[in-house]
């Protein structure tokens, strides 16, 4: 199903995304914000160094207030992860974990920073020899083989479904799935073998991965393990749009003072653009990105 055209789409509802939504929507742009507040770095934090709040404030409270404020300017929120982005004829299209497509004139990356490594024995040793961090890149190398995907969220669930097209057996190892109902239905009705309430303890093999040991002490014989923690990050979602990363660490998206990336209409703000990882920086950049994106969308609409 394809929805209306938005002026500004924002991936991420942490402080950067919220402030961007407030500024873009107050300029009368049609704004949609994707993401789950519980997954913001701020959600469990207590903040004592954010200007004008003398007493420590809870991150959860800030996130709730920010959302209400953005909604009062008519920004729309959808608590889903984005699993795919594309740019075609000057428009961005975004696919949610439930499979819905949204289109926008400009796009803001406010996804924060994500932890991508499992940090278990064997992970580093077998990187590139059975341990992979990118289903879209590497699924093709596992034709007819047995693989496991580890993760609780949309990246792992959609990754497991993608791997079904290549691998013989696909296991999904998770503590507890945190995905949309629609995605859960799709997964449940698929051939993916879901192993819940456990986690990976160790990855073993000689030259290549031969299997994994689980926390519940079961072992699984697999040729590969895909580590897909959290939601897809910038590398998985935006690198295919051609966005430039810092060449030293590839961990953050490069922007100029207008929060523009190298791709017209694509902006980034918050932790995703690099340190310091602080709310004050996230809202400052979000403000600029929101204003710039709204103006860009207006110009594009009037062309």
């Amino acid at each position, binding site marked *: 199903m394809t929805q209306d055209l938005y002026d500004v789409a924002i991936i991420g509802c942490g402080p950067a995304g919220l402030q961007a939504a407030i500024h873009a929507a107050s300029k009368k742009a049609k704004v949609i914000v994707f993401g789950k507040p519980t997954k913001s770095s701020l959600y469990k934090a207590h903040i004592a160094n954010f200007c004008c709040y003398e007493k420590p404030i809870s991150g959860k409270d800030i996130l709730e207030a920010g959302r209400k404020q953005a909604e009062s300017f008519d920004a729309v929120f959808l608590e889903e992860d984005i699993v795919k982005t594309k740019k075609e004829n000057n428009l961005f299209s975004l696919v949610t974990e439930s499979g819905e497509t949204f289109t926008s004139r400009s796009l803001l990356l406010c996804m924060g920073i994500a932890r991508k490594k499992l940090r278990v024995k064997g992970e580093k040793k077998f990187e*590139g020899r059975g341990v992979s961090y990118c289903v879209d*890149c*590497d699924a093709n*190398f596992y034709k007819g083989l047995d693989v496991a995907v580890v993760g609780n969220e949309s990246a792992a669930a959609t990754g497991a479904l993608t791997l079904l097209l290549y691998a013989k057996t696909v296991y999904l190892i998770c503590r507890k799935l945190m995905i949309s109902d629609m995605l859960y239905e799709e997964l449940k009705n698929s051939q993916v073998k879901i192993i819940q309430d456990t986690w990976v303890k160790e990855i073993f093999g000689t030259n290549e991965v031969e299997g994994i040991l689980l926390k519940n002490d079961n072992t699984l014989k697999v040729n*590969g393990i895909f580590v897909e923690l959290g939601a897809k990050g910038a*590398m998985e979602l935006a690198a*295919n749009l051609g966005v430039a990363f810092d060449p030293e660490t*590839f961990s953050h998206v490069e922007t100029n003072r207008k929060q523009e990336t190298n791709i017209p209409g694509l902006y980034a703000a918050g932790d995703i653009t690099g340190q310091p990882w602080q709310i004050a920086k996230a809202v400052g950049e979000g403000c600029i990105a929101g204003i710039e994106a709204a103006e860009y969308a207006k110009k594009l609409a009037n062309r």
Partner: protein
Amino acid sequence: MTQGVLDVDDTNFESQILKADKPALVDFWAPWCGPCKAIAPVITELEKAYGDRIIFARCNVDTSPNTPTQYSIRAIPTLILFQNGKVVDQIVGAVPKSHLEEAVKKIL
């Protein structure tokens, strides 16, 4: 001026890389791979700096499946450095430019 990053495939890998008179760095990539796109500018930059002494090449694993199989490649991007037809280093993933440059300097 250097010659730019060379495209190699299953048919000419031996003649262009293994039997080359210079050491070579081969970037195994595919069009659908985000991290491959992210590191491509770094390879181009390194080629400009060292391309007179080292061959910089890229091999599309989608259209040339045999070469990656031969080197047991299971993840992309993978960069392999060759000297006299032998693998001297193999680097997986989007690693920092400084790390790549160090590896390149070792085969100069």
